[in-house]
């Protein structure tokens, strides 16, 4: 068994002749929390989609726990949780029905207990039987986190989860995200938000135009200077 949760080797992705990612090499250790920064169009979402088996790489290799993710994608998907700015939820079903649907799709035993557990984690017990559509966007995002947690994934992808939320909801979301940000869970997060990204990551990667242009461990980063570093590598301020 390797110690790496995720290994990305020489990964490239082209859409037609348009290169979204070129020659990405990245290793994420078990339990490590990596934050991927980058401006719009840098390839962050494409990277997360490939890592989560939603999209196929054009060339290169992705391994999760030492296994090629393309050999048995269904098996790999069981270990993956995903929160994006889209919630994946059905507005016309209740919180409970949404979680039950996804729980069944993941084949979770003793699902009832699990649903109550994840709902209390995101502090939405009182809204369990409300339709998702009537909840505020911030609450929906918390339900989405509960959805992603339902099968206790060992790897969590957070793809710009804070996009479109108001500042109060972002603070609440951060608390919830931090509560799931446990040491044994591998987390890969993409974000624009430098402050939050730095807080949550052990390691920081900057992606620009489909290439990794900067990598550093949190300890090596001068926090105060980081916005300038970011601007230097991407040509854009936050």
């Amino acid at each position, binding site marked *: 068994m390797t110690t790496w949760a995720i290994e990305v080797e020489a990964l490239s992705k082209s859409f037609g002749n348009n290169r979204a990612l070129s020659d990405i090499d990245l290793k994420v250790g078990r339990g490590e929390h990596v934050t991927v920064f980058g401006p719009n169009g840098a390839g962050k979402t494409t990277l997360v989609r490939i890592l989560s088996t939603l999209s196929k790489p054009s060339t290169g290799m992705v391994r999760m726990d030492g296994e090629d993710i393309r050999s048995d994608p269904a098996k790999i998907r069981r270990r993956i949780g995903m929160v994006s700015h889209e919630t*994946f939820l059905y507005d016309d079903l209740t919180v409970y029905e949404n979680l039950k649907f996804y729980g069944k799709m993941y084949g979770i035993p003793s699902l009832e207990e699990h649903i109550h557990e994840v709902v209390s984690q995101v502090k939405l017990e009182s809204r369990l039987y409300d339709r998702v559509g009537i909840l505020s966007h911030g609450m929906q995002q918390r339900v989405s986190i509960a959805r992603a947690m339902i099968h206790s994934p060992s790897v969590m992808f957070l793809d710009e989860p804070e996009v479109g939320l108001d500042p109060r909801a972002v603070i609440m979301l951060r608390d919830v995200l931090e509560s799931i940000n446990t040491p044994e869970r591998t987390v890969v997060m993409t974000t624009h938000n430098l402050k939050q990204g730095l807080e949550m990551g052990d390691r920081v990667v900057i992606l620009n135009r489909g290439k990794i242009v900067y990598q550093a461990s949190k300890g090596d980063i001068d926090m105060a200077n980081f916005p300038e570093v970011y601007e230097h590598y991407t040509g854009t301020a936050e």
Partner: protein
Amino acid sequence: MKGSVGKIFTIFWKDILLEIRTKEIITSVLVFALLVLVIFNFAFEPETATMGLVAPGILWVAFTFAGVLGLNRVFAIERGNSRLAGLLLCPVDHMVIYWGKLLGSFTFMLAIEIVVTPIFLALLNLPLLLPRLILIIVLATLGFTSVGTLFSALAINIRARDIMLPILFLPIVVPVVIAAVEATVVVLQGDPWGDMLTWLQIMIAFDIIYLVVSTLVFQYVVEA
């Protein structure tokens, strides 16, 4: 394998639940199908002699157009909030998603036909329950939805999807429409089983071929 069947039904049940909540597909499509029946009765002189020949055509035009309308919704349900991504992230083979959605669209279409057919037969003063007609409807609906579910998934990726689904769907289902109409003629005229056998065979062949092919190619429609 056993788990897969369970998950097919999980997807199916989720669609049923959504339909019970929103009543989006069945009510609107049902009204539409009934309207087609009525409009066609204005278009043709309701003389019994000609009606017997035209009626099967009217029924299947109603079902075909109603089918397109319903199929448009099948994957549209998954479009908002990137729900399709959520489905594709589930630890199941993509075939399971195809079959789950297929089961839903098949059931919805059948539900509409169960209501429309007796009304249609009543308008023609025929017995309201014709077992052979039920067989034809089941076979044709399976054919429609096997291709239609695939195209519905395909159409959500393209611009002008509302109009593209019928343009894609209608030429492909021509054999089913022909076979269903001809077989219905046999039933309505009370001709023997043997006369409709060929048509049943064509529909069965179509169903099997498209269920297999759609199951195989569905993954290419939803991957990115």
